[in-house]
């Protein structure tokens, strides 16, 4: 069974490649935009000598190059996405690229498409404090109010559903929370933001929906190979810390920060003021937070990974160990 993995050079993608091989894939095609990270393929080939691993490069925005790469592929794991840049660039690299992948996969008769989505697609605005965010929580209908990333990921999921209906391929969707680990970012916006030399702590006592990058990759590989058609999973680890506890551990282990905790009522006022000022000043300052994004992102929720556990997934790296490894790596990075 040949598996094609897009975004193979990425933070998560390179771990997914290893997890797929660990879970029995013997014919793996790694798709990268230009070149794979140095040593990646050699290391995989060394650790999995019986597997056939090939690297192909393509720009997913150029649909013409994809049909040849999908020949003979049984399953596509689509991890490539635009993670930064202007809104239009993020949309192009996430949605237009995905449309090309889905269309080419459908035309090539691919059996299954596995999409790496995001927590940002969930319609969390209506959830009350303490509610459970589950695999079947409703999705945003459009997502434009969630900002460029949330909008692009939401449109990407809706597009997958459209192409599933058109071509009839199987689909599996994984929606990770905050993916962390060596090589990743330091502090999620859910924890807070750096502003003019200060760190404004926003998350407070809310749980931080972490998933260690290797655990997340294992979940993707397992779901790709074993989940039933049409399944979708939110991906979080066990023993989630609060945002406050994560920040405390970060400050202790990585970097001293001057922290301003922003109480929730002050955050609400600030978000409302930001939106008002943004409108009154005709966009002189961006509305970094709005009452909508505040409620969507910062309402304290509970999370579950029971769907994945029913498949047999267990987070191999405990959260305490994951944070330890991540902080050790971050400590060595130049600041």
């Amino acid at each position: 069974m040949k598996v094609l993995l897009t975004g193979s050079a990425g933070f998560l993608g390179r771990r997914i490649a290893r997890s797929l091989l660990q879970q029995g894939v013997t014919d793996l095609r790694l798709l990268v935009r230009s070149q794979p990270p140095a040593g990646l393929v050699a290391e995989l080939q060394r650790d999995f000598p019986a597997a056939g691993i090939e690297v192909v490069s393509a720009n997913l925005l150029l649909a013409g190059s994809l049909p040849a790469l999908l020949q003979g592929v049984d399953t596509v794991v689509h991890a490539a996405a635009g993670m930064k840049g202007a809104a239009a660039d993020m949309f192009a690299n996430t949605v237009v690229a995905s449309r090309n992948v889905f269309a080419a996969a459908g035309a090539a008769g691919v059996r299954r498409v596995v999409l790496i989505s995001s927590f940002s697609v969930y319609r969390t605005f209506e959830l009350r404090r303490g509610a459970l965010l589950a695999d079947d929580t409703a999705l945003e209908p459009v997502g434009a109010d969630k900002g460029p990333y949330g909008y692009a990921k939401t449109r990407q999921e809706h597009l997958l559903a459209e192409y599933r209906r058109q071509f009839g391929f199987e689909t599996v969707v994984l929606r990770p929370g905050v993916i962390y680990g060596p090589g990743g970012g330091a502090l999620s916006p859910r924890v807070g933001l750096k502003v003019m030399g200060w760190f404004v702590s926003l998350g407070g006592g809310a749980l931080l929906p972490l998933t260690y990058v290797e655990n997340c990759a294992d979940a993707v590989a397992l779901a790709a190979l074993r989940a039933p058609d049409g399944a979708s999973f939110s991906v979080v680890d066990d023993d989630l810390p609060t945002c406050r506890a994560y920040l405390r551990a970060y400050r202790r282990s990585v970097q001293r920060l001057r922290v301003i905790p922003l109480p929730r009522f002050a955050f609400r006022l600030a978000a409302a003021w930001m939106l008002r000022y943004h409108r009154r000043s005709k966009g002189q300052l961006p509305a970094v937070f709005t009452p909508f994004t505040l409620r969507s992102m910062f309402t304290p929720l509970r999370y579950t990974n029971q769907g994945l556990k029913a498949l047999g997934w267990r987070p191999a790296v405990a959260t305490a160990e994951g944070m330890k490894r991540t902080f050790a790596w971050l400590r060595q990075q130049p600041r």
Partner: protein
Amino acid sequence: MRVAIVGCGKIADGHVEQLRATGRGEVVAVCDREPLMAEQLAVRFGIPRQYTDLARMLAEVKPDVVHIATPPDSHLVLGRLCLDAGCHVFMEKPFALTEAQSRELLDHAARLNLQLGVNYLYNYEPPGLELEQLLASHALGEIVHLDTSYGYNLAGDYGLAVMSDPGHWVHRLPGKLFHNVLDHVLAKVVPFLDDELEVQALAFRRRDPIGSDIVDAMPDELRFMLRSGQVTVSGTVTAHARPVPHQLKVLGTLDSVELDYTARTLVHSARWAQPSALGRLFPAWVQARQYRRNARRNLRLFRRHEYHYFQCMRVLLNRFYDAVQGKGPAPIPPEQILRVTRIIDRIVAAL
């Protein structure tokens, strides 16, 4: 006025936002040959109609003005189509690929008595507007020399897109990376030049190769020298200097000024008016006072909500729409647009 946008990439956001801020027109439709890109711009900004066919949009929507924000190799064809439909056109830079294309477009607009503007926005930054006043009052005397510098961060969002994609349209431009920014560099100096020009230029790649023939063929450092009669210009486009520069020095026979477009400051060059070492104590204080004056001006603009990142584009759009409505002259005269593209042709030929 009814306005349409063609080309729904990232710069289209700026056109919609700034046009809305001016209140001079309503964006009624967007068009992109990629339907998803047209959709995303329409959805994010609540624009009612979206198209993938420009001719159809022009026929159905009948806009008064079309903003063209596509890559420059399409500007000639799209510009002609819009002008033929009776629309005024506001063009994103680079205006066109060559002087010949620019001339064709400008002549066509003139024949049809339509406005054809271009987004040479930086002359309308606060220091650019202050320079405009100084020049109008002849406070600098005759202009002797201009030094213009512009930085380009290849590690930034746009630079990464160019560096990681050999198929990016920038690689198809005759002057590659420089072709995409020279409009900004030259638009500031062409008002001081005439059409008799000497041009010298050199360019090279300073970064290490990455193994892509197309990407590695793109130079990233440019120096050029222009002479037009008694006026000379030196220019720098750099991808490596930090902080990323964006400056202009104007040396006149009476006074000289230095403009920093990033910091939004204009300061007159220091004068050494007092003798001896004691006299050299004063200029730094005088300069400090000038920076304080700039800071107060910027704060005033901020409080009036006239300090947006693209405030300069708002000023330019207001003047362009004044011209469209017959309330003022074209903010950038056609001969200056032609001169910019002619100098780019000459610089590219000299490399």
